[in-house]
Structure formats: C-alpha cells, structure tokens
C-alpha cells in the first residue's frame, strides 16, 4: 500500500511540475471598442487595426523604434526607376496559420483585392496615384512584380500596412501570416489570439517567435476601469493613456508609466478664411491677414498650455511636423515665441489700436471672435480657456464655445459657420504624402479654406507646387528639400496655429519584458513577437 501511495504522489508531483513548466503565457490588454472587421484590407478604426497588426504578416515592416524599413515576409525588394513598380523577393517555405503554403500568388491576390475599386479598401487608397489598373506579375513562387499606373512616392514603405491574405485557404482572412491568429471571438467581450504555429520569425538562438503563447483583448470602453485593471494586474499594458491618467499612475505605480517623448500628434487651431463663410467681412479681413495670425500665435503661451493643460506631458509645437518624425521634421524651425509686446506691434502695423484695454481694428470694430471645439475633450476645453485669458492680454475678447461633435463637424465642413476652430491631428504615418489631403488647396481637408478651385493666395499656390513635386519625386532627399520648404511656409503663414505636440504616454506592467514604448503606433506592442512575460522568464531560469 505504501508503495502505491508513493507512486501516486510521485505521479501527481510530476504532472504538476510538467504543467507548471509548460504553463501557457498570455499577454492581456484592452481594446476601446469592438473591432468592426477582421478583413485587413477594410480596416478603418483603431481596434480593427490592432487585430490586423497582431495577426497580419506584411512584406516589409517599419521598425517603430528606428523608423527604418526592414525585411519581413520579403527578404529583399527593388523599386523601378520610374517609381511605378516594385519587385519583391519572398521568404521561401512560408506557411499560413492553417498550414496553407505562402507564395507570390498570395501577394498577387492581396494586391488585386486591395486595388479593386468595388472593395473601397482604405489601405488601397494610399496606393492610388493615378487612373488605370494595377498589374501583378508572378515571376516565380518567391518573386513578384507589382506595377502601378502612376509613380507612388514611398511605395515600399506603404506595404507595412498591407497584411497578406491567402488566395487558397478556405479560412479566407482568418488564415494569417502574423505572430498570432484569432482563436476565439466573444462578440462585445473579448478576443483571444493564439500563437501562429507557422510564424516565420525566429530569435537569434533559433527559437520560434512569438515568446508569448496568446494575447487576450478585452473590450473595455471606460479608461478609468482600464487603468484600475492595470494597477490590479488584470491587464499587462495600456497602449496609449492621456496626461491625467499618466500623472495618477506615476504617483501610484511609477514603474508602470512610460513617456516616450513627443508623439506625432498635435493640437492646433485655425481661422476661417473661406470667402463665402457667413461671418462679417471685417472679421474675414482679420483672419486672412498673416500679421494678425502671427500676432495671435505670439500672444499664446504654449509652454503654459503644455505644462498646465497636459500636465507637462506635451511640448510647445513647432510646426506641422513633430520632431518625433526623425527624417521629415525640419530641424531649422523653432517654436513661435510667446511675446505679447511683439504681437501688439504686429497688430498696430496692421492698423489695430488698443484703447481702454480693448483692441479695435481700423474700422473701429472691437476684436472679438469665438473659438469652437468639441465638448467633452477636457484638454481642448482647457486650452481654449487658457487662450481666452492669453488673448485678453492683448485686448482681444474670445468666446469659448463647446459643441457636440456632429454639430462641430457640420459647421467646419458644411455650413462653415464658425470663426476659429480648435482641434487635434492624429498622424499615423511619417510620410508627407499622408498630409496631401490637408495641405493641397483643392483638398477637402484643407480646413481653413477647403476645396479651392484655384489657390487663393500665392503661398498656398507655392505649397501646392511643392507638395506635388515631393509626391512625384523618388529621391527621398529631394522630397525632403521640398517638404522642408512647405514646413517653412506653413511656419511663416500659420494657417494652422500649432499649439502643442502631445507626448506618447503608455503604461506597461513590470511583468512584461522587452517592452520599449515608442511614439509610432502601436506604441507598446509594436514588437509583440519579442515581448516576454516575467512568469515565462522565471521558468526559463
């Protein structure tokens, strides 16, 4: 009997030991909303993009830390001289998560799907440079040439956003080449991604990646609850947090809080310069004057905005490009100074006069205007209130009006019944082509005066010329020269008064190793296949 008890005891011990040694690791974090689609070509919002990033295999990957392009499913690529074609050499022996072989046929299939006008693929739109059909030529199972109807600037880098789909798998978009595949989807509650058993990437020692066995994505809209869950250890990271939550986390658990420095995102305001806008003509004259806009800019204390509104987790903005954009940022530009004396001089040169603390124009109209922004965004509301106080220092009366978002959009895009708008810009792409739809005067998003038939001013005509020149050039250094000049003009003319550049703030549990939060999205899990959990590292020891 004693021997049998011993045998049972040893058996149980061995089983427990084995189970402990092989306990699966799981990375846990939250999505702010339910993903709308799992088709990587139809991704438009953040949650779907997160799933696409974690599951999609791409030909080339933009390293979010170095901001340089690296081989991924393609081992090499070559751009044609005319910028219309790109030839990829693919990694041999690749397989999708369901075992289906990966070949050039799959790349061809993906590109054809992406460029199909009936699909209305958002990622496909980034490749559209001219009319005509996109040709794909499979040169061998591991070589493919893709030819576009017109040159596409930064063509190779755009493939970082194209997750390759299988042309043969019965699972369609659910068969993936990325680090994880979707194993379980409980609608409205959570998703579970399991490691892809056929993932191509291995570490230096030859171990197949990813290190972490699975990822659990909970649907959690409430940011307070998300932070509470992180502090309680129920989740491992929060990819992006705002300044107030960061401050709270820094007080409670400083090891969890990460500030990666200036992000690509900015907050700015602009004056309505539309000739047909339903605002008084004398106000239009103010807003269309460069001196007026420069004076307003100089009257705003950006350092205070960054320090107070964003709790010090923002920097005074310099211009249209954040310094975080290492290659494209024009480093010769400096932030506009806070100098109300100089601002008043500019205004006086423009015919404005100060009397009893009230600034009036040459026609005797007291300078007063409204700033609209979206209700519920406390950072913008704070900034607008601080700008209200700053401008009172130069005799200008500002009315802060917060509107619900649909009403705000209605005013700034359709009725144009507004005077000044304060909003933010979220940049997900480094390349200047991503802002063509803002800086070209005929664009709908040329917010201060959209959809112009011909440029209203000489400087806007010059920006049009420079933006088109950089879009059609294949030489990055030449493109940089053109785009640097665009930044200089934008800095001088200030159609957008850039206020602050927000810092990239995130939160990572100390149980997650190899995390290096960066400014590019996704800030924390950009290297998800290299992340490790402390439990796994303890086992290895």
């Amino acid at each position, binding site marked *: 009997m004693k021997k049998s008890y011993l045998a049972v005891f040893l058996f149980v011990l061995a089983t427990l030991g084995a189970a402990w040694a092989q306990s699966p690791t799981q990375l846990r974090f939250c999505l702010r909303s339910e993903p709308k689609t799992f088709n990587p070509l139809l991704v438009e919002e953040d949650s779907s993009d997160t799933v696409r990033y974690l599951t999609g295999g791409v030909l080339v990957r933009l390293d979010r830390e170095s901001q340089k392009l690296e081989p991924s499913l393609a081992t090499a690529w070559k751009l044609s001289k005319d910028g219309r074609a790109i030839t990829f050499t693919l990694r041999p022996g690749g397989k999708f998560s369901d075992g289906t072989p990966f070949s050039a046929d799959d790349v061809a299939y993906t590109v054809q799907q992406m460029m199909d006008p009936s699909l209305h693929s958002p990622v496909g739109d980034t490749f559209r440079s001219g009319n005509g059909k996109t040709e794909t030529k499979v040169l061998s199972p591991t070589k493919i040439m893709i030819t576009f109807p017109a040159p596409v600037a930064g063509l190779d880098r755009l493939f970082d956003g194209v997750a390759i789909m299988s042309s043969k798998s019965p699972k369609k978009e659910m068969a993936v080449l990325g680090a994880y595949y979707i194993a379980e989807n409980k609608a409205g509650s959570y998703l579970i991604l399991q490691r892809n058993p056929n993932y191509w990437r291995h570490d230096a020692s030859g171990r197949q990646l990813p290190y972490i066995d699975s990822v659990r994505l909970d649907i959690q809209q409430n940011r307070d609850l998300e932070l509470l869950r992180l502090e309680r250890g129920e989740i491992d990271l929060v990819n992006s947090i705002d300044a107030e939550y960061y401050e709270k986390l820094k007080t409670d658990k400083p090891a969890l809080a990460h500030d990666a420095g200036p992000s690509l995102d900015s907050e700015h305001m602009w004056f309505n310069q539309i000739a047909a806008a339903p605002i008084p003509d004398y106000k239009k004259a103010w807003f269309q004057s460069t001196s007026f806009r420069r004076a307003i800019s100089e009257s705003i204390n950006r350092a205070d905005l960054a320090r107070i509104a964003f709790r010090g987790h923002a920097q005074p903005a310099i211009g249209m490009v954040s310094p975080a954009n290492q290659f494209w940022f024009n480093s010769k530009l400096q932030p506009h100074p806070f100098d109300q004396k100089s601002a008043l001089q500019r205004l006086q040169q423009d015919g404005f006069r100060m009397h009893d603390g009230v600034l009036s124009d040459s026609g005797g109209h007291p300078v*007063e205007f409204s700033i609209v922004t979206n209700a519920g965004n406390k950072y913008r509301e*704070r900034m*607008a209130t601080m700008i209200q106080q700053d401008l009172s220092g130069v005799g200008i009366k500002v009315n*802060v009006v917060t509107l*619900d978002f649909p009403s705000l959009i209605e005013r700034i895009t359709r009725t144009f019944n507004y005077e000044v708008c304060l909003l933010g810009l979220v940049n997900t792409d480094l390349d200047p082509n991503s802002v063509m739809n803002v800086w070209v005067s005929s664009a709908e998003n040329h917010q201060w005066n959209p959809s112009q038939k011909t440029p209203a001013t000489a400087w806007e005509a010059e920006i049009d010329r420079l933006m088109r020149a950089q879009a059609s050039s294949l030489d990055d250094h030449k493109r940089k020269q053109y785009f640097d000049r665009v930044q200089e003009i934008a800095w001088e003319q200030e159609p957008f008064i850039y206020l602050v550049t927000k810092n990239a703030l995130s939160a990572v549990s100390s149980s997650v190793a190899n995390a290096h939060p960066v400014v590019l999205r996704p800030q924390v899990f950009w290297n998800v296949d290299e992340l490790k959990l402390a439990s796994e590292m303890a086992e290895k020891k």
Partner: protein
Amino acid sequence: MKAARVFAISFLLAISLACAAAGWLAPSGYAHQFREIPNAPASSQHWLGTDDLGRDRFARLLYGTRVSLLLAPAAALLSSLLAALVGGIAGFSGGRLRKVVMAGTDLFLSLPWLFLLITVRALLPLNLAPLTSVVITFALLGCLGWAAAARVICADAGSLRHSDFLLLARASGIGGWRLVSRHLLPNLMPVIYAQFWLSIPLFILTEANLGILGLGVSEPLPSWGSLLRELESYSSIASNPWQFVPLVLLIAVVSCFHLLVMDRELPA
C-alpha cells in the same frame, strides 16, 4: 417639520447671502488663472484649492451657485406660468379643447429633452457673452419644462371645474376673467406653487447635466455643472477631496428645496 423648514430657509438664505457677497469673499474672481499653482490643495489663500487651470475653486463655487440659484427659479417661474396657462385653460375648458391640448402636451413630453437642448444649443450664435448664454440656457429650460406641470394643473383645474363653489359662482352670474381670477386661480395656486418649487431643483440638475457634457455655461463663467465635471475622473478624487464640495452643496440645496415643498404639502 417646521424646524426643518426653518433650517431649509436659513440655509438657502445663508447660501444666497454668501453668493451675493462673492466679490468680497473671493476677491480673486472666478476667471483669473493662477498658473503657477494649478490643482493646489486648500490653503489660506484658496479655501478650496485651485482647479486644473489654477482658478480659485471657492470663488468659482460662489459665482457658480449664484448663477444656478438666480436662474433656476427664474426658469421655474417661466415654466410654471406656461404650465398654468396651458393646463389651466385646458382643464377649465374641458371637452375637445382639453383633449387637443393634452395630446399636444403628451407629444411635447415625448420629445427627448436632452437632445433637443443640445440641438438648440448648437444652433445658438457663437459670439454670445457667457452670461447671455446661461440666461438663454435657462430660458430654454423654462420653455421646455412646462409640459409635465401642465398635466398636473390641467387635472386639478378639471376637478375644480365641477366643484360646488364654482358652480355656485356661475349660478350667481359670475363669469369670464372674474371667475378665473377670484375663484379658479386661488384654488390652483397650491398646485402651481408646488410645481414651481419642484421645478427649481430639476432645472438645476438639468443645467448640471448639460455642464457635465460640456454644453452648459460658456467659459469662464462657472456653474454647478462645470464644477461637477471635476468629478468625472474618479481616479483623481481621492487626492482631491475638496472637489466634492460643489456636489455636497448641490445635494444640500436641492434637499432644502424639497423640504420646503414637502412641508407645505404635509397636513398641519
């Protein structure tokens, strides 16, 4: 209950006096931003500390209370008068007119108040002074908040229509405006009075809701709604307990108004 009423009245009077003396009690004003000390704790200079823009919270509480305590009764008066007019006419007339008016009232009640307020707010001119915008907000509340009270008044007027003293008055040859002013209105007054007092806290809370949504009073003028927005981020409340003071004051004031109404309704 008399003691409760006395307490309620005394409390409201004390608050009103404090608000009237806001300029003296809080000389820094509600708009000035002490930018070197945002989110400061309570101190001798700033009795309730400063908010996230460095504005004196005590000053903002006084001025915000002034806005709410002045304008909510005004809005309640407007809505009560409208309710009395509509409900009184419908109830006293009876018949088809009553049915038509009450159908219209029901339709009005079924409208989503908050969305209506948000829509009207969005349509307002942009360059309104903060005080003008708050007056318009409360006027809107007054114009929109009559329907529920109108139903109550209509029901009361309807029952009075068949009362003995009214029949006697009619039989005596009294009619028209004299009948309404000498016999009907005095008997409707308790209901109108109750509706008035009940509407005040309702409008205060509605404005607070709008303020929490960021659609209330324009900056820098404070209101209870904008003050209560500080409580949105409950993760920071533990370190800033003085943010609760506007909420405590709101509960106390609304309770006092309810005490006043209850005391009048209870039998002697």
